[in-house]
């Protein structure tokens, strides 16, 4: 059985088409990543699935229940962590957790097992008001509160935005442990490097899915060879690459530029000759596997620059 299904969802706010014809399926116990920049429509889709917004067109179901007709039944079965911290700032850590449990007629004790790993990290501060916690602690508390009624599906809206790389890794380790409990997770993120940690992903921009698949298949679907190119003068290198008519796309990617060629006849030796002819030293060209970020740029049609 699928945990979440959405068919041809559309949502409009006045003149802005927030979502157009979006469909997805999330298998039970899967981590599904909604990957895209701010304003792409990630929050709108999550809010529709969490029964907080009604779609203009299309249907969706969560745990077998329709998001419009059976919204009340869905709410007992899902946990939702919004992008903005939305617990009670004036209640303590402990009070927040007890409150959220009681709303769902649950107790902290009966579901403690599920949150134990995470809660132990904030337990030393259980008497502290939630508003006085650091960002990382707030995030952990919010996750505990979203889990305390033992939901089947968890909706996490940008849980790692603004979080440093080390804490982001910790957060993803927590998600992997929740997956072992059989919880299905829909998580949105603007960080493309988190895509590889999901079972399946949708790349989203301007309210449309560019592609939905496993991260491995998305990378496999990249429709050309990709080269990593370096020289001693990286900014001149980028300009010279763009000036080359055989280059289809070239852009900075960390310590190298990623380059794709227009036609098959042109190869790395041709490029090496071209660059050395322009005075580049220590030219280094190597074929690489594209990343999800490379795929995102290619699919969104922004790969020329």
């Amino acid at each position, binding site marked *: 059985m699928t945990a979440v299904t959405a068919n041809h969802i559309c949502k409009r706010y006045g003149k802005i088409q927030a979502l157009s014809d979006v469909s997805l399926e999330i298998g039970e116990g899967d981590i599904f990543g909604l990957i*895209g*920049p*701010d*304003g*792409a429509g990630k929050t709108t889709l999550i809010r529709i699935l969490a029964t907080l917004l009604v779609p203009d067109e299309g249907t969706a179901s969560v745990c077998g229940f329709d998001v419009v007709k059976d919204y009340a039944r869905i709410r007992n079965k899902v946990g939702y962590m919004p992008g903005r911290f939305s617990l009670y700032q004036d209640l303590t850590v402990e009070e927040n957790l007890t409150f959220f449990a009681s709303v769902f007629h649950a107790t902290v004790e009966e579901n403690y097992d599920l949150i134990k790993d995470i809660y132990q990290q904030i337990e030393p501060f259980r008497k502290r008001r939630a508003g006085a916690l*650091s*960002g*990382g*602690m707030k995030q952990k508390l919010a996750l505990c509160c979203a889990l305390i009624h033992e939901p089947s599906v968890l909706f996490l809206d940008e849980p790692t*935005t*603004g*979080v*440093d*790389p*080390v*804490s*982001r*890794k910790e957060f993803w380790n927590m998600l992997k442990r929740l997956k072992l409990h059989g919880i299905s997770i829909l998580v949105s993120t*603007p*960080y*493309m490097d988190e895509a590889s940690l999901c079972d399946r992903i949708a790349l989203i*921009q301007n309210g449309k899915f560019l592609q939905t698949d496993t991260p491995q298949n998305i990378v496999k679907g990249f429709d050309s060879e990709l080269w990593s190119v370096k020289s001693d003068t990286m*900014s001149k290198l980028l300009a010279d690459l763009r000036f080359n008519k055989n280059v289809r796309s070239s*852009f*900075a*990617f*960390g*310590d190298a530029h990623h380059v794709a060629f227009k036609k098959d006849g042109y190869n790395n030796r041709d490029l090496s000759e071209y660059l050395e002819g322009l005075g580049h030293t220590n030219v280094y060209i190597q074929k690489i596997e594209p990343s999800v*970020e490379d795929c*995102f*740029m290619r699919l*969104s049609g*922004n*790969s020329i*620059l």
Partner: protein
Amino acid sequence: MISNVQIPEERVIVAHDLTKKFGSFTAVDHISFEVGKGEIFGFLGANGAGKTTAMRMLCGLSKQTSGEARVAGYDIARESEKIKRCIGYMSQKFAMYEDLKVWENIRLYAGIYGVPEKEIAPRTDELLQRLGFEAEKQTLVKSLPLGWKQKLAFSVAIFHEPKIVFLDEPTGGVDPATRRQFWELIYQAADRGITVFVTTHYMDEAEYCNRVSIMVDGSIQALDSPGNLKRQMGATSMDDVFHRLARTAKRIEQ
């Protein structure tokens, strides 16, 4: 082989043993570093490592507990008003007034920073043309896509040609293509001699900096070019360097 990185001779930031305590908590612990004119300096660290506190002191918004620093030649404790005049600042959270039009935002900031009245209008047109935003002159900032907002906000932050611009996570949530265009604007500014002091959680962006510092528990644990840091630590990427250093953090989040 580790080569010494040439720092431009003219120093625009010089910090010596800069320290900030909040009660018994030492947020910034004796940090010392120098940044040269036109450098792109990446200021990295985990959440809670003390980056924001350090940045607030350098901008003249918070007084140090001990130590000293000069920014653009001025003492941060005694001459903070002079510092504010010759720096620019932008963050992901606050950049521009959403309910003002594009040109009104530029007009407002230019006025605050004392750009001569006669120059504002022509320079506004020139800026919008360079960004390809001419058609958006009369648009309310709130209706621009995030990536455009951030590019515009950066351009506004350097409209008065400051000596240094401080950027606090400027590209958070921005799409990958626009993120790269944003960095091209940073390069152009640095080429004009504006020093760029930038924080980011994207480790590929750390690679674009001339030098980066990495703060752990209030102190600077590493400071060098990305290339040298990777060689010193035998790491393959800045992400790798960051994880190795930040994992040594002992400080329990308060």
